[in-house]
């Protein structure tokens, strides 16, 4: 039984989508109808038993859930604490992204939509969206930065093979931020028939909450699995990488109100937090509005959004979901960062020590393990959000 009904600050934003000062829906009037429909219906639809039955069935039979919680013995020994890996990399399509796209495609069907649009950075969300569109026979258009199309060629091929149209975003920096702009513009231009599947806990309310709820299956399973394995539901730490923050939101969700559980979010520091080539939003950003919600945004003093940098396309985003901005501001979450170099080293190390090649995004989470003062009695869950096949070209350059 999903734990959707827990009521508190971190899990339930206000009626207008605020987590503290962050959130809201700063959208042009042209999107009002679509967003209002979602806002008034998403909870009702998600809590409908028939919807839940269909959602759970697909998570089980199509995605392959529950994903294992794996005790990483060699890594545990090396770090000096008990480390469990939540194997989201074993989900169909290779990452946690599909938990959300399954949920949203079912929601789009109930809203009577005919066409799906999505943005993608690394291409994982694009592939997950193209996959569920194929599954449900819906038209799919994915917006992807021109630069990302070049550096994530295998995922572009996957999307095409799945029947999606990939449209290059040529504006601005030609990465995830611009792909998101283009997807929002496309939605403005055809609002009635189209549903926009946002891939992260960003965007106007209700997206951050809706995506967090669809991803919350991750922490729901962790609690159950940890209880079976250790006799206790609560770890001491949950560690996850954060770009927009969807896998972290899912991994944290059912621990948000467990004060003994330390929530560790790892951002991409690129060449170093203060190198000028970084995507460590909470370290470098200030309060601002991006893609329809108020959050922490990397920007100039004039309020122009700046170009982030990360070796991983999925973390190459100048914002962060409003839930995470609130976790950061309220100090409920610990926000750390890992550089490109550290992430690469972690990816190679995890491959050798546990036989698991992680996505570059995910690798960032592992880089902080030696730095958070773990004790031998600590029980840590790392969200292994995606597998590394898509990053082989990058890894091959460093073999």
């Amino acid at each position, binding site marked *: 039984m999903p734990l959707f009904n827990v009521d508190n600050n971190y899990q339930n934003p206000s009626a207008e989508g605020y987590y503290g000062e962050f959130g809201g829906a700063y959208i042009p*009037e042209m999107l*009002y*109808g679509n967003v209002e429909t979602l806002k008034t219906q998403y909870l009702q639809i998600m809590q409908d038993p028939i919807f839940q039955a269909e959602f759970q069935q697909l998570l089980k039979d199509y995605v392959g859930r529950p994903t294992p919680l794996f005790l990483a013995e060699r890594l545990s020994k090396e770090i000096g604490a008990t480390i469990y890996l939540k194997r989201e990399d074993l989900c169909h399509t290779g990452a946690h992204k599909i938990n959300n796209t399954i949920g949203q495609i079912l929601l789009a069907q109930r809203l009577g939509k005919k066409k799906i649009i999505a943005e993608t950075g690394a291409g994982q969300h694009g592939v997950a969206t193209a996959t569920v569109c194929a599954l449900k026979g819906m038209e799919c258009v994915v917006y992807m930065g021109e630069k990302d199309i070049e550096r994530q060629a295998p995922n572009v091929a996957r999307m095409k093979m799945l029947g999606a149209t990939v449209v290059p975003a040529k504006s601005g920096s030609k990465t995830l931020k611009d792909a998101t702009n283009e997807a929002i*513009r496309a939605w*403005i231009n055809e*609002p009635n028939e189209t549903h926009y599947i946002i891939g992260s806990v960003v965007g106007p309310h209700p997206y951050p909450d809706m995506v967090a709820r669809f991803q919350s299956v991750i922490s729901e399973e962790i609690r159950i699995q940890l209880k079976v394995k250790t006799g206790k539901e609560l770890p001491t730490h949950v560690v996850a990488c954060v770009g927009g923050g969807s896998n972290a939101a899912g991994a944290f969700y059912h621990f948000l109100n467990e004060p003994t559980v330390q929530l560790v979010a790892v951002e991409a520091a690129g060449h170093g937090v203060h190198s000028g080539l970084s995507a460590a939003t909470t370290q470098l950003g200030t309060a601002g*509005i991006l893609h329809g919600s108020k959050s922490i945004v990397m*920007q100039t003093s004039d309020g*122009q959004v700046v170009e982030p940098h990360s070796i991983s396309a999925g973390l190459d985003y100048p914002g962060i979901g409003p839930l995470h901005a609130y976790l950061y501001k309220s100090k409920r979450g610990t926000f750390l960062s890992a550089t490109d170099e550290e992430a690469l080293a972690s990816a190679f190390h995890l491959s050798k020590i546990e036989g698991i090649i992680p996505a570059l995004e995910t690798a960032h989470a592992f880089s902080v393990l030696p730095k958070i003062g773990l004790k031998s009695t600590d029980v840590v869950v790392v969200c292994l959000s995606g597998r590394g096949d898509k990053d082989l070209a990058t890894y091959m350059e460093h073999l």
Partner: protein
Amino acid sequence: MSRLETLFKEKSNRVLNVYCTAGYPALDSTLKVMTSLQKNGAQIIELGMPYSDPLADGEVIQLSSMKALDNGMNIAVLFEQIKDMRKSISIPVVLMGYMNPILQYGFEVFCQKAKEVGVDGLILPDLPLFEFEQFYGKIIKESGLDFIFLVTPETPAERVKKLDSLSSGFLYAVSSSATTGKDKDFNKVAAYLQNLQSMQLKNPILVGFGIKDKATFDAATVYTQGAIIGSAYIQELSKGGDIEESTSQFLSSVLGA
């Protein structure tokens, strides 16, 4: 009486509002573009403050915004450029822009400064009704600026009335749910505008999005007080000709003079 109010008192049909991007085509061309617009028949100037992520704008205005930002435009520079504009510009000027740069500048200071240099109103497409009522509306009203909400063909009648009641100066009727610079089927638009007209709103209605030449300007103004041209004019400026000449030719082709 505000400048916009006076304008609509004197002229209640075929009012032409032209959009231009501050700092485009050159950083210091802002005032030159504005005076050319005034001289050649524009009755309102909508001055766009460039932003890196303009969600409601199509490609033409995006490109002009990028160019303007590259040229060094920002809110502080803009206020410096237009601080004496009322020596030469007598028609109403409304600022159009997105929330983020204004929040960084300081919302209250921004409104005060805009009023001080002689700006008449604001169009902020990503400031929604809820936030306006919660917080920002009061600051705008206190500064004495007009605030212009957008309505679209999808906006329910009750909401149109509400947006109209909170707007002053005029109401911005988006011709269809779309970003700027897209072609529109004006037969469909006509029914929507006729319907707006029949609602007897308190504000004059100006139609924007998709108005690009005499035919669309004529069609848009049958049921309304006027129309707004943006992308088509920016496109004209982007050709790089003399600003005065381009503006004169473009506006006379629209107005059919």
